[in-house]
């Protein structure tokens, strides 16, 4: 364990010093790496640890983004405060969806479809809400300043995104060793067995979806203040949900470092594919290549890349499982 912690410390140190050595563009890529690692980790809490598979997390991203942005634009509430309110809002919606899904005992694919349906209904509703800019979307005013969560360079975004990512790692690590996290995993593995051992399956699934939605929504605030434009189709569509889940799945679902590793691989890969295969006359080839990479990754690392790394490093790092 000691080796792991010192290794992590070293990596964190490198990440903290990184901005001294790379361009704004690379920093921007890292912002996306951390952002998607964070979003993936938030999703991982629900699907990776507690079990129910959600393909509607874009809904929570959207709710978080819209609430904090509306609060900032109309009432002047700083996004640093608004993000928590957005988190609560998304949490409530998540709990409502969870209540229906879990009360009615939807599992596996059925729960997936329920989340897709709610995600799409959320998107369609947002498209018709006047305060959210109707179908025109919300154009966020760019007002640089710490209080407004708006910055000129990528440097502050880099450190904030890094902070988000580290925060999610800590949350999940604390979960892993706590009663909640152990219960999550138990009900993911076998609901009946968990229930028979005194675990209130419904309650802990609700906690998982509430927490997961809350954290996802915090990321929504980051998105809004980084991209400056919110449209239901670009923040709440199923495609966004797929972007959120892609990285933790490739990295290793239900593992602490899966989302980060997945993001470290996929985010630059999509950038590289785009920058090297963007050719006039061959529009679309980079997505074909990216798609091929995704399929290959699933086929060759069915347990995720993190478990593969774990297997490889086991002789060096020793047993990390609880014994």
């Amino acid at each position, binding site marked *: 364990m000691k080796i792991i912690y010192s290794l992590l410390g070293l990596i964190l140190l490198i990440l903290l010093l990184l901005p001294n050595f790379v361009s704004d563009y*690379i920093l921007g*890529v890292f912002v996306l790496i951390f952002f998607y690692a964070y979003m993936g980790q938030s999703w991982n809490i629900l699907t990776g640890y507690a079990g129910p598979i959600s393909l509607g997390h874009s809904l929570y991203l959207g709710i978080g983004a819209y609430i904090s942005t509306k609060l900032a634009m109309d009432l002047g509430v700083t996004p640093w405060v608004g993000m928590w309110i957005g988190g609560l809002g998304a949490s409530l919606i998540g709990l409502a969806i969870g209540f229906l899904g879990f009360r009615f005992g939807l599992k596996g694919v059925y729960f997936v479809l329920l989340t897709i349906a709610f995600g799409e209904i959320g998107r369609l509703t947002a498209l018709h809400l006047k305060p959210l800019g109707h179908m025109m979307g919300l154009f966020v005013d*760019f007002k640089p300043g710490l209080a407004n969560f708006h910055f000129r360079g990528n440097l502050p975004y880099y450190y904030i995104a890094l902070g988000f990512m580290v925060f999610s790692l800590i949350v999940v690590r604390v979960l892993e060793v706590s009663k909640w996290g152990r219960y999550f995993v138990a009900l993911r593995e076998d609901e009946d067995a968990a229930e028979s051992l005194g675990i209130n399956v419904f309650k802990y699934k609700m906690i998982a979806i509430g927490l997961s939605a809350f954290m996802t929504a915090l990321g929504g605030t980051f998105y809004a203040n980084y991209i400056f434009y919110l449209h239901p189709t670009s923040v709440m569509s199923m495609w966004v949900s797929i972007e959120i889940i892609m990285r933790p799945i490739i990295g290793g679902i239900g593992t602490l470092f899966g989302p980060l590793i997945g993001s470290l691989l996929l985010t630059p890969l999509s950038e590289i594919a785009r920058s090297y295969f963007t050719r*006039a006359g061959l529009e679309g080839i980079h997505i074909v290549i990216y798609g091929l990479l995704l399929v290959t990754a699933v086929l060759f690392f069915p347990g995720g890349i993190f478990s593969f790394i774990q297997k490889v490093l086991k002789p060096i790092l020793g047993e990390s499982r609880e014994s």
Partner: protein
Amino acid sequence: MKKKMNRRTFLKYSAAVGATTAMAGAPTLLRAQAPEIKIASIQPVTGVISDIGISMRRGNQMAVDDINARGGIKSMGGAKLRLLLGDSEAKEDVARSEAERVIKDGAVTLVGPFLSGNAMAIATLCEQRGVPFVMDVAAADDITRKGFKYTFRVFPTTTKFADSMLFYMDKIMKEKNISRIRGVVTNTGDLFGRVQGATFIKVLKEKKFPIEVLGHIEYPLGIQDLSAEISKIKALKPEVLFPVARPGDAKLMIRELYKQRVELQGIISPGSPGWYEPEFIRDMKVLADYVMDNVPWYNPVGKMYKEVNAAFAKKFPGKYIDTNSGYAYLGVLVIADALERAKSTKPDDIVAALKKTYLKQDLMVGLAVAFDEKGDNINADTAMIQIIGQSIKVVLPEKAAETKYVYPMPKQIWDRGA
């Protein structure tokens, strides 16, 4: 703060020299002879509107090729322009990331990106990085209301669209002695459709214009079946349909109007693609006739237009210069003109030059390109075009008109024996 400044200065320096600080494998450029100036085009060349995105990219690229063929930027020793290509995939975060990448690769000015949402993401980034950004196409008023210093728009704003539309409608109604038109507005449920449709209705109301809007029907982007919408329109019994469409649904709409035999005096778009693409006329044939569209259009009598269009048609068979490719071309011209006058690739010099732009052009309808304090092109204008005999004619304003408009439609769509 100091560190950051240093890094940025370094970056600019590196961009100017052409060195790259990128990750492994970034292209290294051998540069011995003529200096090269990089500008970047970011367009949605994949995803739901890739057809338009690719057309835009072609417009950008052709302008760059033409400028280089004419000797590049003369004030800077005949420096050649190089166009870096970016793909926004029609997504905001990708648009931002692509903008960041091309800036890293040394682009001194960005052009793009057709979608207003993407434009917002890029404009904010350009503001953050202090890099000039010329929007060739993107109509939403809001973007230039945010006080950006580095963002300019060659395209007309939505309000401009609506104003011109009313101007042309007024003319038609006066000439034809029509006191009142009962119409239905329909648009795609995306940013552009909504903005165009809603602004048109808003301006009608504000000006108490004698067009009565019987209904406002919005349908999702990428819709595959418009039968229900057309049935609803038919039930409202409008005289004129005011549609804001995309290439795919324009065809659907015409076919459904035909099949359901909707009786109309005219189909007049307040301004949208869909009605002027070659594919529309190719696939719809006589059914396409008499559709009018209020769009920023090429200037059919312009010398520049004739040259550019001939070259474009030669390079991309079956295609010709239209609103999008035309403005994409013009956007690059504006940048080249500014570079010529700035004699520098420093962002602030380029911005200063852009502000003083007075680019005479007869490529598109409208006067010389010149920007107001918000960065909008004050002389951008639209034309009323109409499909007559399966070819597109400018019908208004009169000074650019190729022929007289036909209103009302002499034959209903379903009467044309297709």
